């Protein structure tokens, strides 16, 4: 049985009207620099493992997240362990 807590504070829902998910948002200066740092780190990988991505062609958060994932997987493989994804904020089905 789920434990009942005496003092509960509601966290605000992110409403559909706010509809803020936007992976086409242009990347911030922060993410731009993260890309540059990853690109530099990528140069330490064997040639066959490098993505050959021109990071100057990355403009959106979606494009950035794809590149970041590729390089992070190389630098920090998770050992094939499948962990259950944990959602942050709203997570909704595609469609």
């Amino acid at each position, binding site marked *: 049985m789920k434990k009942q*807590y005496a003092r509960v504070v509601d966290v605000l829902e992110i409403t559909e009207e706010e509809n*803020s998910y936007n992976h086409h948002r242009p990347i911030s200066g922060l993410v731009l620099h993260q890309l540059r740092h990853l690109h530099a780190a990528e140069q330490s990988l064997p040639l066959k493992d490098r993505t050959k991505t021109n990071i100057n062609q990355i403009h959106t958060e979606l494009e950035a997240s794809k590149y970041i994932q590729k390089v992070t997987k190389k630098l920090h493989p998770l050992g094939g362990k499948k962990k259950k994804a944990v959602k942050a904020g709203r997570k909704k089905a595609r469609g």
Partner: protein
Amino acid sequence: MSAGLDNLKHIVVLMMENRSFDHMLGGLNGKYPQINGLTGSESNPDASGTTIKVQPNATYQGQLDHDPDHHFPGVDLQIFGGDPGRVANMQGFIKSYATQGTGVQGSHAIMNYFPPDKLPVLTTLATEYAVFNGWFSSIPGPTICNRAFAHYGTSFGNVDMNLFYITDPILSIYERMVNAGHTAKIYYYDQQSSTMEIVNLLNNQPKLFGTFAQFVGDCKSGNLPEYSFIEPNYTDHPGSGGGQILASDQHPDHNVKAGERFIAMVYNTIRTIPELWESTALLVVYDEHGGLYDHVVPPACTPDGYVASAASTGTGMPFQFDRLGIRVPAILISPYIAKGTVVPGPEAPANQRVFEHASIPATVTEHFLKKYDKRTDREKGAQTFLDLLGDTLRPDDDCVYFNI
């Protein structure tokens, strides 16, 4: 040693992005006058010379779509207001924001703050546990160099976002811990978001890293390291199993509510495991102010032995790392902390305590490693915060839980 300190086995730090103390917590001053927030009379001049007061009109998203300047020269303008005599007056925030293409009217948004009921997670934690009136970013500059202070107790002379490669004998707090037989980990959100500590740690020390899902798993399985540092999600991106994942870092102009939910998730993960809850101190802190208004003048600090050149500061003047950056929200959470604890800052000169991100490795080092000499004078001189844990364990019914 207090009972809280005696029982402490884990320190967890969650570092969010780019919001000032007054922007997030300044509105608490109305109900809690000991919290050094806003009275409503604080102001800045705009480009036309009109005085613009702070307003409780901050929105979760859409108001800061021009990213406020938080690089070294921009923060310099914010602090000194362009005063040729360089007297710190915190009068340059609107002038600085206007340089980002906002127009005069749009530049006023930098003075907006959240009324407390719009941030139930952060304001509840601030009033239920310990809030710091005087926690400052380590450098009046951007993310990477400020986060470096949380990892190393120094930025090795850097004041910007550029790459740096560490050649000094100063190790990260994680390496110090692991080398001494302790456990430590940086948990980034997921592989699409990754970490901001790439070149010196992810590239060379991948064993130090995990994902947020692994953090949750480690908490549940009793394998949480002694020291953990959590990074939020930095981008909106599809989930690996489908769906959409919102950025939770609260960096403008990401949705602040998503960050609230993430903070609540980290808190609940610890809160709902009794043995972990009673043996963990969780620090929620922001890396820097992100260009947003704060009324407290950053104080002087112990230099860390480095000098940033005039060329690298962009102000025409070198920087000796002898003063701090702008104030940020910081909250320490533990059931051994008395409800409503407010740690005095510069508003109370007689008993002020000034913290900054070097306080993080300083605290972890002090607690787990005791004597450790290979660190900067800045870190050695930084305030530590575990003395806030007292002898009394608050009853479970007295500690909040978030309904996410």
